[in-house]
């Protein structure tokens, strides 16, 4: 495979949920590409569909929902069409995921060695002793001291930061092509978050893993991302290289998201003006109409924003935005 080909390609992905009230569309035509070795950040507020996108890639959409359309191509294989036995060979092997809360994602009744070794035994057909040796190597590689002792410990014996290191060890044990990290540091303290970001960067550089990092923290985006996909209301609002998105955000939502962050300015000003606000709240899936889901919170909304969702317009060489304000730039 050449380096110019995406390792993961999500193409017009639609996910719908069925309930007594009818069918609700939680993802609408979500498309993006993940290149080998790059970090792509999915950004947005809760309810915008970023975690659902991750679950759909893993084919773990909850029972009441289904993938209603689109393709998810992993090195050319369409995961949407894969049968369960094939998915089992892919999950944890070619695509793996780390979750927000390491305490609930780890199994409390198995040792960390068992949990890291499980994927090695399943995918690499290693025997028990080899899997244990592999688990010790992984623990050492994610920076856990005394791995020979820790391998026999249970999750409750580890600190929050160490648990997340174990999660990363499990996810990377089989050298997956794609690592999905869903808010991996939200439950951690900021000094520990810095350690985990260092670890992710270092492992990525060593293994060439493509990372899909889901976060709501623009600071984390600035630090980790090569490219950014901003989501809102189950759609991609804007996509581009991290420098473009942060320095020249094109979508009014992205602009608001960056402006409303309190800064950490060493020359703290005593005046302290109020923070710019994005008024209102994210619309629920039932309230999304035909138009742009952001129109009722947008200061620059026009009549047509209510009527039709805009296509992707070009806002720069690799920078695309779904907003009528940028009509004329062609994608």
């Amino acid at each position, binding site marked *: 495979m050449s380096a110019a080909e995406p390792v993961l390609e999500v193409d017009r992905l639609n996910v719908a949920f069925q309930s007594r009230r009818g069918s609700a569309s939680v993802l609408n035509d979500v498309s993006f590409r993940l290149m080998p070795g790059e970090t792509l950040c999915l950004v947005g507020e809760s309810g915008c569909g970023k975690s659902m996108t991750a679950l759909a890639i893993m084919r773990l959409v909850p029972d009441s929902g289904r993938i209603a359309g689109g393709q998810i191509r992993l090195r050319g294989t369409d995961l949407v069409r894969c049968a369960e036995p094939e998915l089992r060979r892919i999950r944890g092997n070619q695509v793996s995921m780390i979750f927000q809360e390491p305490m609930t994602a780890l199994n409390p009744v198995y040792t960390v060695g068992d949990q890291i070794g499980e994927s090695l035994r399943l995918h690499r057909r290693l025997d028990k002793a080899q899997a244990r040796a592999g688990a010790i190597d992984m623990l050492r590689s994610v920076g856990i001291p005394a791995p020979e002792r820790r391998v026999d410990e249970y999750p409750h014996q580890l600190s929050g930061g160490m648990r997340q290191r174990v999660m990363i060890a499990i996810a990377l044990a089989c050298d997956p092509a794609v690592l999905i990290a869903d808010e991996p540091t939200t439950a951690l303290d*900021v000094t520990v978050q*810095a350690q985990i970001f*260092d670890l992710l960067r*270092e492992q990525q550089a060593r293994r060439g893993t493509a990372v899909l990092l889901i976060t709501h923290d623009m*600071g984390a985006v600035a*630090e980790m991302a090569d490219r950014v996909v901003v989501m809102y209301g189950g759609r991609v609002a804007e996509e581009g290289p991290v420098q473009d998105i942060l320095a020249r955000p094109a979508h009014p939502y992205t602009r608001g998201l960056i402006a409303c*962050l*309190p800064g950490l300015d060493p020359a703290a000003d005593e005046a302290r003006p109020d923070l710019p*606000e994005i008024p209102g709240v994210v619309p629920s899936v039932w309230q999304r109409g035909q138009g742009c889901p952001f129109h009722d919170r947008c200061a620059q909304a026009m009549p047509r924003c209510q009527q039709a969702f805009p296509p992707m317009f070009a806002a720069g060489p690799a920078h695309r935005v779904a907003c009528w304000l940028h009509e004329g730039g062609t994608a």
Partner: protein
Amino acid sequence: MNHAPGSPLLSVRDLQVHFPVGRRHWGGPQAVVRAVDGVSFDLQRGRTLAIVGESGSGKTTTALSVMRLAQPTGGSIRFAGQDMGALRGQALRSLRRRLQLIFQDPYSSLNPRQRAGEIVRAPLDLMDVGPAAGRDARVAELFAQVGLRPEQRLLFPHQFSGGQRQRLNIARALASGPDLIVCDEPVSALDIAIRAQILNLLRRIQREQGQSFLFISHDMAVVQHICDDIAVMYLGRIVESAPRQSFFGRPLHPYSVALMSAVPTVQGGRERARQRIRLAGDPPSPIDPPPGCGFAGRCPAAQARCREQAPALREAAPGHFVACHFVEYRDGAAWSPLAANPAPASATSPPRSAA
């Protein structure tokens, strides 16, 4: 902030909250968590004091003991001149009217079976605030103050968004007309766009009504925006306390410097990540804290003395207190041991942190 001019609204001296843990072995000593271990601070009227620290630093326990929701095992808490430890029964209840709390989680802190109007009215009824006939009008006024519509009084909590629920929490806290509001991580459960709305609301309320806020947070950017004074806690103790500008202009304790540098920022990006001061490991357990400075095990500037002798809080600049042996004075100013050799020392440290 131990230099209080005038009389502070809240004055905490040498507060200790120790919890017994586990079962005591026959004849053996009882293990004790030193959640708060000798904390002193003053909070002036109309000001915001932020207590920051990581999980397990004792910041929430400090806040709860100010509310008398955690029982102090030592020290004193004086509120408006009264020793809270000596108050019992009716006297404590009537004082509680002047102290209110906003919780972190806007979901679990509201009764799902009560209507919003009843939730906000409850403190008025329970504490018998104002004439009964005027309470409905008072609830409507509180709704308007926090930016909710009057007709929303009939809704149940699940019909509100997270940000609106936090507005309800704020309205309930304001109901009894308190002098002090303890805000325990009031925005950390909220989405970023909603955070700005709530922070602006809290500041507007303080400007208009003059309450004091004791603001508990782990988020340095939020704290910088909202506080007037800041106290940094580590392992049950205050390691640094200062007025806002003095602290953010030049944090002195190595932990404060590291905490500030750990925050990822939009402006800083990757360059900031490269120059970060890296802390190894996790905070030690408060069950059997090490002798000497609690931060010595993770401190890049630690020396032998730090492990033997606990540094006392001392005034390094006007109003700026720090508990570190190695804060230096040069050119008439105090310097943190980590700031002494600027950038190169930390920039060349390996990108990988040891656990």
